[in-house]
């Protein structure tokens, strides 16, 4: 039950906001902030009470919803879900705080949207029912669409529609897959279920050919969210046009819904199909790492640069997931948190600069260090975390995903995925230092930069806690890895048993042959 307040407080906040007069801007802001902080406290309670030792779902809630479809209001969290929920509840107050000064129209609607967004995102991480998952998945779409479309930049309509269509396309396939999957819920045939806990157990016994189609349908919708190359082109537009808070949430949490889905559904439900597609997914992931980095290198717009860096960094996560090793998965999970923190910080920094100068072009800056030294330090920490400097969080995730993918059995011991992906580590230094140098170093050539003011108190409140977390994860990663340890190991054990040589493999291989998919291999 500890999760209910975490899930419902944002919804309650949205409802509460509806009763606040829309001209009472201060009241609206405070209401939103208070609810997000309450949610954080509620999640912290759940986090601290979480049993590390167990890989099972905890704080289960199971309420009947649609009996005929065996769909229910089922929520619960395992180690990786609880980490991502924490990430969400940490990012949201920051996103609300950063909106105080930058959002200046229809404030009431805006904060209602933010609250709904949080409700949806938390729901996705907690749902243990495919229908419920789908509902939350769709709930996210609407507020994000409006946040970009109403409070975005010059080209916001194009960006918001592109975002909407891309994700909508993916969700439709997912809905079909969820229905198809539901019919497999009862191995004896005839039954239908949306209960994820049941489906988790029966998933591997689904015939190979069906598994493959289901895998593809889920993977496509998740890959769009991640985004995996070549489905990434909505991201730069969405990021550039979204208001700062939108970008922070987008990079901080939304993208993780995709990678989370890949683990929760693809890997967990369809281990054989995952093994079958592992190479393809890893190839796309590695292409994404290098491609995103190379394209980021030639961007002149800071926000676009950071957006493409996300494409690169998310590639590491997908690589870690489909390495199907403990190190790879643990790395992927911690990297989701890391990317949320460091890229979130980078967008906050870009937002801080934009608010002062109303430009995102690197060349309009230069020499900012002289005017904003404290900001320079925080911006530097965010940049270095993103570069993957050891001692900061980014390194832990990158190192583990690369280690996991190196010589992974699921990738037939192929080492080249790691070798190529590791070259992204070099490129990350190239583009991020280019950005940092261009903005912070050199003399002040543009007179408009003369009057820049250093970090405000509000900005410090947003950035310093995130920076502290970057150090914490970098220096004491075990604090967080312990949470996801049991559930990851359990998952890897399950997946491995269905791989060639595993205990469950022979049986499934026989079944897949009868299903007529032997020619696929």
């Amino acid at each position, binding site marked *: 039950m500890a999760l209910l307040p975490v899930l419902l407080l944002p919804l309650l906040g949205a409802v509460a906001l509806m009763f606040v007069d829309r001209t009472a801007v201060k009241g609206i802001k405070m209401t939103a902030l208070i609810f997000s902080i309450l949610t954080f406290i509620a999640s912290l309670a759940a986090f601290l009470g979480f049993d590390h030792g167990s890989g099972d779902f905890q704080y289960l809630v199971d309420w009947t919803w649609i009996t005929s479809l065996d769909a229910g209001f089922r929520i619960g969290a395992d180690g990786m879900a609880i980490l991502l929920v924490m990430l969400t509840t940490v990012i949201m107050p920051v996103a609300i705080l950063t909106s105080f000064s930058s959002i200046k129209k229809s404030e009431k609607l805006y904060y209602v949207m933010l609250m709904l967004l949080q409700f949806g995102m938390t729901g996705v991480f907690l749902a243990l029912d495919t229908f419920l998952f789908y509902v939350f998945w769709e709930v996210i779409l609407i507020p994000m669409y409006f946040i970009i479309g109403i409070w975005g930049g010059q080209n916001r309509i194009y960006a918001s*529609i*592109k975002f909407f*269509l*891309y994700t909508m396309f993916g969700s439709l396939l997912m809905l079909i897959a969820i229905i198809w999957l539901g019919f497999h819920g009862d191995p004896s045939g005839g039954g239908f279920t949306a209960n994820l806990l049941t489906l988790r157990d029966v998933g591997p016994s689904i015939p190979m050919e069906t598994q493959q189609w289901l895998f593809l349908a889920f993977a496509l919708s998740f890959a769009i969210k991640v985004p995996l190359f*070549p489905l*990434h*082109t*909505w991201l730069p537009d969405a990021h550039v046009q979204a208001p700062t808070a939108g970008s922070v949430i987008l990079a901080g949490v939304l993208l993780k819904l995709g990678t989370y889905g890949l683990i929760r559904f693809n890997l967990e439900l369809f281990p054989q199909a995952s093994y079958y597609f592992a190479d393809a997914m890893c190839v796309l992931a590695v292409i994404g790492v290098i*491609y995103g980095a*190379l*394209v980021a*290198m*030639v*961007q002149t717009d800071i926000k676009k640069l950071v957006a493409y860096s996300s494409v690169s960094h998310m590639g590491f996560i997908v690589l870690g997931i489909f390495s199907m*090793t*403990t*190190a790879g998965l*643990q*790395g992927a999970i911690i990297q989701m948190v890391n990317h949320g923190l460091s890229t979130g910080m980078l967008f906050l920094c870009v937002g801080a600069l934009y608010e002062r100068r109303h430009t995102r072009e690197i060349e309009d800056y230069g*020499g900012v*260090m*002289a005017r904003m030294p404290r900001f320079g*330090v925080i911006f530097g920490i965010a940049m*270095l975390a993103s570069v993957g*400097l*050891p*001692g900061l969080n980014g*390194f*832990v995730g990158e*190192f*583990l995903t*690369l*280690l996991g993918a*190196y*010589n992974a059995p699921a990738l037939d011991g192929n*080492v080249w995925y*790691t*070798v190529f992906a*590791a*070259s992204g*580590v*070099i490129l990350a*230094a*190239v583009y991020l*230092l*280019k950005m940092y*140098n261009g903005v*912070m*170093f*050199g*003399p002040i050539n543009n007179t408009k930069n003369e009057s820049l003011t250093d970090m405000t108190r509000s900005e410090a409140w947003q950035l310093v806690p995130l920076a502290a977390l970057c150090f914490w994860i970098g*220096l*004491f*990663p*075990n604090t967080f*890895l312990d949470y996801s*340890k049991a559930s990851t*190991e359990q998952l890897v054990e399950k997946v491995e048993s269905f791989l060639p040589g595993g205990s469950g493999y022979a049986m499934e291989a026989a079944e897949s042959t009868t299903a007529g998919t032997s020619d696929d291999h």
Partner: protein
Amino acid sequence: MLTLIPVVILLPLVGFVILGLFGSRIKNEKVVGWFGSGMVGIAFLIALGIFFELMGMAPEARAGEANIVQVYSWLTVGDFSVDIAYLVDPLSILFTLIITGVGFLIHVYSIGYMHGDESFPRFFAYLNLFIFMMLNLVLASNFLLTFLGWEGVGLASYLLIGFWYKRKFPGVGLVWTGDAARKAFVANRVGDFGMLIAMFILFTLYGSLDYLDIAMKAEASTALTAATLLLFLGCTGKSAQIPLFVWLPDAMAGPTSVSALIHAATMVTSGIFLVARNATLFALTPATMEVIAIIGVLTALFAATMGIFQNDIKKVLAYSTVSQLGFMFAALGVGAFGVAVFHVMTHAFFKACLFLGSGSVIHSMHEEQNIQKMGGLKKHMPSTYWTFLLSSLAISGIPFFSGFFSKDEILWKAFSQGGVFLGGMGGYLIWGLAALAAFCTAFYMFRLVYLTFHGKERFDVAKVHPHESPATMTFPLWVLAGLATVGGFIGVPHVFHFMPNYLEGWLDPVVGTATAGWIAFVESTGVHIVHSEALEWALMGASVAIAVIAIMIARKLYNREMPTLVSSETGWAGYKLLFNKYYVDEMYQNLILTPIGKLSNSFLFRLVDVQVVDGLVNGTATLVGRSADILRRLQTGIVQNYAMLMLLGIVVVIVWMAV
């Protein structure tokens, strides 16, 4: 005492944090400077205590598991586990003493050198950060913690090269000091990539990243060869060897004390440390050893020739550093691990002294760095001159100065043990190239000495009044010059007989097995290891003669007055090639960097992203829109049309059913 090692490491971190957070509020430079220096000084004293404790132990007890100090478990995933733990042994404590000892002197020097700088506290904070990271690098008990230090010193180096971020620093593809800083970081990252992959290989092979574990389990294999080669790639980055040396000369954009500490005495020797620390692994992979020896000696020669015609006082020293590091790698390559570490130490003394001396010169010449515009400084700044001269004699290999012992030992080992390489010709070739490099070294050093300190003043005496630097600067100079002069006596070659080689015995618990293993391997291939004392004396005589001749030539050419002095150089054969450093920077720029940028911009970004993928997405959207536009026309809103269509439909259905 041993367990105090975390304190040694933490002190500079405390300094960094305090100076970083509150430094700018402390208005008194002296307080900031001495606080920063003090942190390193105390660390040095504790390290000295630990050193004596180790010395009191039996040699076998000085290294090994018992000397690991655990702090906490850092990263645990499945069967992968790495601790924050420090390995205190003769090798790491020697590096610790160099880092904190030379580091302390350079901190003190910086109090004078950075006087009046607007970011004085920031400078000391960065220096302390550097010391902290460097100590992690050398004291780590495993690869991953070394890697933290490895990248951490890279960060400190980046911050310090770009310290004067408002200043210009021209170069190939460079405009600001920040660009030079970025170049250093990126070049190092290329090397770090190698180190990262090497760690993956080693973990796959041995299930551990602990140095002692791996050394114990190591066996020769192709995978191990790949790992050591990749580790060496990391070394070419950090220790500025071919092909990644290009960043070091540009690192001179930073303040001179930084060049002395990071880019001469300590950080750039990390590569030598890494090979020495893993001597067991390298000794098992002859292919890698051959590559190291060849790259080392080629870098030594290549960089030494580049230094000949440079006119920037710091650049000459920078190329000299690259070259000296090459000597050290040549030594490692022929299996003389201890000798390489010996040269690290002597080099730390004389090169730090030379850099600090050059800083003293630049300081008094009002930021002038061009030696063509100097001359006659001897009488204006005697302390600087004498210390600079002593160190120059040391680096040139004049007998009984420190560099003489270490460099000569390298040459001898190359000659006597190099026969296993290059089809049996390795001994002669490596010795020959190294001797040639030594000739260039003595030449460019004394060109520097004569152009800077001798002859008449070639600057406007009315405007510039050179003066000796304050005591905070000259004191470190004298200490270092003293060490550069006599420091070599701890590693006296065996042919001298009059005193034992203390250093060799000291490092024996760490590299002894590997060295012996390597010698055994060389002998097993049938290559004869030369043991003739007469030959050793003869070669020593030859190398001394080479140095003396080079100095005489430099004296003849440069110890005279303008205008014949420098203008004549431009006419020399190969001048242009050497002056432009073989156009390596230009080659990298035009053959690698520019093409990658173009590919990314015009192909990946503008074509694939914008045209192809987005073209498809937008095309689909347009297509849907167009079709909808056509279909929409059916929806006329006129009831008669609908009735008409319905009738048509019924007819079609009836016809279809009838057929």
